[in-house]
């Protein structure tokens, strides 16, 4: 276990230290992957995005300001890369829909689903994943940072470049949408 502090590792990486950067990657890869997975909704795209995040970080680490939070900076790269990816995917899907309307076959959309014979908890998790995947990008980012990563509203606001109040509002709206979509799984279906 590398006992160097994060600040020491960042400083070494800023001077071109590849080994120090590799240690930073090991310390943050799971959290970054968690965010981009939540944003992309599948492992293949999450893998590409996570690689892109760390490559961007390596190229830009010289511009990282000492004294600021490295993980906040990484999360910001991850969220920005994911939002750009979502816009690109939306454009491609719109084009696919247009192609299909013209009779040209396109890739089919996949939604996560629990494997056959899985538990009710697995089923609920799969449904949540699907429902979160249907949230608007900025709501999804707030959900990923606050619920999955456990960031405070203040830290999430720093990552997202908005106010704490905006994070609070996005979380409230995201939960409202999710509850509505998952009523039957959450035992709230009173109809």
């Amino acid at each position, binding site marked *: 276990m590398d006992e160097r502090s994060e600040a020491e590792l960042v400083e070494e990486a800023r001077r071109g230290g590849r080994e120090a950067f590799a240690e930073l990657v*090991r310390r943050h890869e*799971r959290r970054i992957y968690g965010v981009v997975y939540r944003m992309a909704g599948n492992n293949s795209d999450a893998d590409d995005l996570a*690689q892109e995040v760390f490559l961007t970080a390596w190229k830009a680490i010289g511009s990282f300001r000492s004294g600021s939070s490295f993980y906040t900076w990484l999360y910001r790269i991850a969220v920005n890369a994911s939002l750009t990816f979502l816009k690109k995917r939306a454009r491609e899907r719109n084009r696919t829909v247009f192609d299909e309307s013209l009779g040209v076959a396109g890739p089919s959309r996949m939604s996560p689903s629990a494997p056959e014979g899985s538990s009710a*908890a697995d089923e*609920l998790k799969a449904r949540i994943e699907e429902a979160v995947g249907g949230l608007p990008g900025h709501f999804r980012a707030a959900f990923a940072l606050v*619920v999955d990563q456990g960031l405070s509203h203040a830290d999430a606001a720093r990552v997202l470049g908005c106010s704490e109040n905006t994070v609070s509002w996005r979380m409230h709206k995201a*939960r409202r949408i999710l509850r509505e979509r998952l009523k039957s799984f959450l035992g709230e279906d009173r109809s």
Partner: protein
Amino acid sequence: MRCGEAERRLSDDLDGALSPRRKARLEAHLSSCPACRASRDGLARLQAAAGDPADRSPEYWAGFEGRLEAKISAIESGRDAAAPSPVWRRWAWAALAVSVLAAAGAWFTLARRAPVATEAWIPSGDALIPLIEAAEGDPGLEQDVDRLVRASLEEFGGSLDADAAVLSTADPLFWESVSDDELRAIASELEKESGLGGPK
């Protein structure tokens, strides 16, 4: 508190973002509102079930790190191929540093003897900016420049007055980093004190 506000506060409460005062008001509302209590239970189930969406194996992470390392290596080797070799680059910068120092040193030597025109000795600040930036970002280059500057100053040291020598030794990049205006100001001060050098 009404149910609409309670719903917003429930969300804040789950995120640990509720002040004690608001939390007390929320609890008071929940104690008398079964619908909001049901909402809270549903949101809590949602929160608990969300969990970590991406659970990968140790083998996956080893592969992930290996692929990333290979991409960084490719970027770095591309940078090395695009840039001149460090040895050549350092020699080029070193040659530039020496020529600048020679100009500054020559001025000091001449200034001890007779007034000189400003334009004859002030080095071009713009030409030095890349050297300063490169030295700041490259500890090896910085050391090389530092060594050459010290050697050059020692070479001209005999003709420098005590104050200038101390100043230069304390900051070897001093003469490269001062602007033309600063150099003019220094020359002006020297002119006042000794009647030698400075702008005419």
